[in-house]
């Protein structure tokens, strides 16, 4: 495919990549998310990754479902086609788009509600189909856009902003993906750009479904027990207004730490998450080992991060469907229509 690069005058300070584009060229409209939302940090990492790889933005398609997370495709790659679709159904759109045009680089953005509740079935089957897409699950354990109900990835025992405890086990997207035979499974943290950017790049390069679970704290709604005063304050006001509408000003959480080590990260509400980065010598080619490692650390109250599994031989949707290497969208009509003579011939069958 021929990449069109556009001449542009840039502020000299802005560094250019191999195809002469600056990070700015990979940005989108400005975010409408809460100040300090983890999702915005992920957006920044995505911009960095695409820039590093010198991918022409218009060769990318960015799709999403519905949710705060699913809004973020508007905030990167201005020059890429975007599709903010319906809740939980983005995997089907990507499968169809990818079947139609295999030359596009697909990135799907979703949330834990979008992926693990309403969209769980589609996610599982997109994994099975091994659709060639980087699937980023921006995981905050709540439904942000609908104001803080538990999602299926909320930790058991955690308290909602309304003060109710979650009674159910969390679905671990990585364990699920491994069980379904995913060919690429990774987990990151929105605040750890150093770890996240390389995983995004690896996922974009992967031929097949790259599942990337990114823990992405919700500033506004994942208050837990022992939360700040503002919490009591907002709850107080809940009584007399339709919805608590105060969002405390906050800034994004960051955490950079060494492979093999554990890092305790405090969330906006004062609660903690223990992140365990896979060791440098971790072997990501053994599916069962990956599963066991996640489970073992889980029991120790830790959340494993890093590139957890990478299939040595990944056969994507097109390999499986044995489609031609030319995108179906680019096949000339005359190579598709058998013509009238053939139509007359084949109708002998119907006499």
């Amino acid at each position: 495919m021929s990449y069109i690069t556009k001449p542009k005058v840039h502020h000299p300070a802005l560094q250019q990549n191999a195809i002469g584009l600056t990070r700015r060229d990979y940005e989108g409209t400005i975010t409408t998310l809460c100040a300090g939302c983890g999702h915005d940090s992920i957006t920044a990492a995505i911009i960095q990754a695409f820039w590093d790889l010198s991918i022409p933005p218009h060769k990318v398609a960015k799709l999403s479902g519905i949710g705060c997370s699913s809004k973020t495709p508007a905030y990167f790659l201005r020059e890429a086609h975007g599709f903010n679709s319906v809740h939980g159904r983005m995997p089907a759109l990507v499968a169809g788009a990818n079947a139609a045009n295999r030359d596009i680089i697909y990135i799907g953005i979703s949330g834990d509600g979008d992926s693990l509740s309403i969209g769980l079935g589609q996610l599982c089957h997109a994994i099975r189909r091994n659709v060639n897409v980087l699937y980023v699950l921006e995981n905050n354990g709540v439904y942000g856009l609908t104001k803080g109900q538990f999602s299926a990835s909320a930790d058991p025992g955690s308290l909602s902003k309304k003060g109710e405890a979650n009674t159910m086990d969390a679905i671990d997207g990585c364990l699920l993906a491994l069980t379904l035979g995913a060919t690429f499974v990774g987990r990151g943290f929105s605040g750890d750009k150093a770890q996240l950017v390389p995983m995004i790049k690896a996922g974009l390069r992967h031929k097949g479904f790259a599942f990337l679970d990114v823990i992405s704290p919700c500033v506004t709604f994942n208050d837990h027990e022992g939360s700040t005063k503002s919490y009591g304050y907002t709850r107080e006001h809940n009584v007399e207004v339709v919805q608590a509408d105060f969002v405390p000003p906050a800034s994004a959480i960051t955490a950079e730490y060494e492979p093999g080590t554990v890092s305790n990260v405090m969330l906006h509400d004062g609660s903690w998450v223990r992140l365990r980065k896979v060791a440098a010598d971790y072997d990501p080619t053994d599916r069962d080992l990956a599963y066991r490692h996640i489970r073992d650390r889980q029991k120790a109250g830790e959340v494993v991060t890093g590139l957890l599994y990478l299939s040595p031989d990944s056969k994507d949707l097109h390999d499986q469907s044995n489609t031609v290497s030319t995108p179906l969208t680019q096949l000339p009509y005359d190579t598709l229509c058998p013509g009238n003579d053939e139509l007359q011939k084949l109708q002998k069958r119907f006499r």
Partner: protein
Amino acid sequence: MDRVNNFAFKIATANGTGSASANGLIMQAIFRMGVPVTGKNVFPSNIQGLPTWYEIRVNRKGYTARTPDFDLMVAMNPATYQKDVTELRPGGWLVYDSTWPLDDTLVRPDVTSLGIPLAQMVNTAFKGVRERILMKNIAYAGALAGLLDMDAEIIRTLLAEKFSRKPALMDSNRTAIDLGYDYVKTHFPCPLPIRLAAMNETADSILIDGNTAAALGCLYAGATVGAWYPITPATSLMEAFKSFCQKYRVDPESKQNRFAILQAEDELAAVGMVIGASWAGARAFTPTAGPGISLMSEFIGLAYYAEVPAVIFDVQRTGPSTGMPTRTQQGDLMLCAYASHGDTRHICLYPSDPREAFEFAAASFDLAERFQTPVFVLSDLDIGMNDWMVPKLAWDDSYRPDRGKVLSAEELEGVKTFYRYLDVDGDGIAARTLPGISPKGAFFTRGSGHNRFGAYTEDGDEYVEVIDRIDRKIQQASRAVPAPVIRHAPGAKMGLVTIGGCHAACLEAIDILAADGVPLDYLRVRGFPFGADVTRFLEAHDINFIVEQNRDGQLRSLLMLETGVPIERLESVRYYGGFPMSANHVIAGVKAKLERAA
């Protein structure tokens, strides 16, 4: 009256006994004799053991509608003896397996019973359970050949064609045919008064089912992506498409496919894949039935509002809910016209037979891309799964797909800034672009509020501007969908209006009613939104009989809503028991209304 080439018979068997091949053989033989013939396969929603029937109507005048009274019955299924025998007209013939004594339930003084020891003959002639069961069917086919005076030569040829690569099978089939044929020839006065005589009425026709024909339409229109979830009666559409693709869409060198068929996990995913593929620039479609349309509703609204093409085949079956999956109905007319929440309206095409299924399937892709919206092709189980005699399909090789307004990289260079929802030409249709073409073509597709520039909006005026344009756009389509079929009858003051598969029954009924002194003008809608000619027709007649196959008069509802013609002019004639409509239904309905009026 003369019953030569003018009679109907029915074969009653149990599901899973392999009778379909025998029945197909009979159909084909009659067809090859040049005699107009129709077959209706009445099968249960299970795989083995439940009652199944095959109805064959032979009509020299070429009436192809189902007829409910039969001259001859082949009663092979004890479970339905009682019911089957009652469906014979007085003076008819009953063929049964006389290996066992005639069952009391089968005795009817006013019909002639013809006993043939099928099981016995077959069991002596063949070993192996499987072969015996199957050959019993071929044997009754042979018996019918004798009784109805089928051309034995033609049958031999058919077997030869069919089993050219399976000599063993050919022999046993021949033997089975002869068993039945010889037996009736020696034991009964053959042929019966109801009999066949060669004609030359089928030379330019084929016997084809609507799903196969629709699949050909998709193939010829250049569809490359098919997504589906299996459901009766739509399943065979995608299966046919697949087999055609395997024949015509495999690259000779690389042996790779110029198509992708995705078996989705459900209908929500299937239509999602179609929308995704169309958005990326492919011609994509999904075949389904009522339950699938219900499940697709949310996605359909997205495609409507975000203006993404999509082709959806609704092979209608008897609803509501699971209903009777192996019976036919026209129960999704309203749903497809207005599917999804909020203000929506969709282009619909209504084929009346397999030939139109082929043509409209092809046309649906042009319409979907031209108007950038979902297009429904509504056939039904009768059209989709039964073999119809229709004129040979033809394809105009000068056809080129109408992709609608899709800007190329070059065209984009020409425009200053590209805005996805800007009505530049004033025809309600804004240009779209495909991913990967050019940095200037990028836009953001969303099901949430957007303005004409494609930007997110919560501003009332900006929102209204866009959905009003979409409304105009869809209204335009009324001029692009297939025009209604209209026939005028001398001296007719009243009209008869119908849709889809009711066509055959209505034409027959109109002839009979005319002979009865009730001339009727005729209109069959073929596309939605309706055009001005539909309104004109309705207004031109004080009484319009609206003939359709659903309980609630959904076609009449659509006509009321879209043409504003008052209900007094629209007399509803409905049959919705699950069988294809027959002329009697129409005639009885019309007469009942007339009597009430009188």
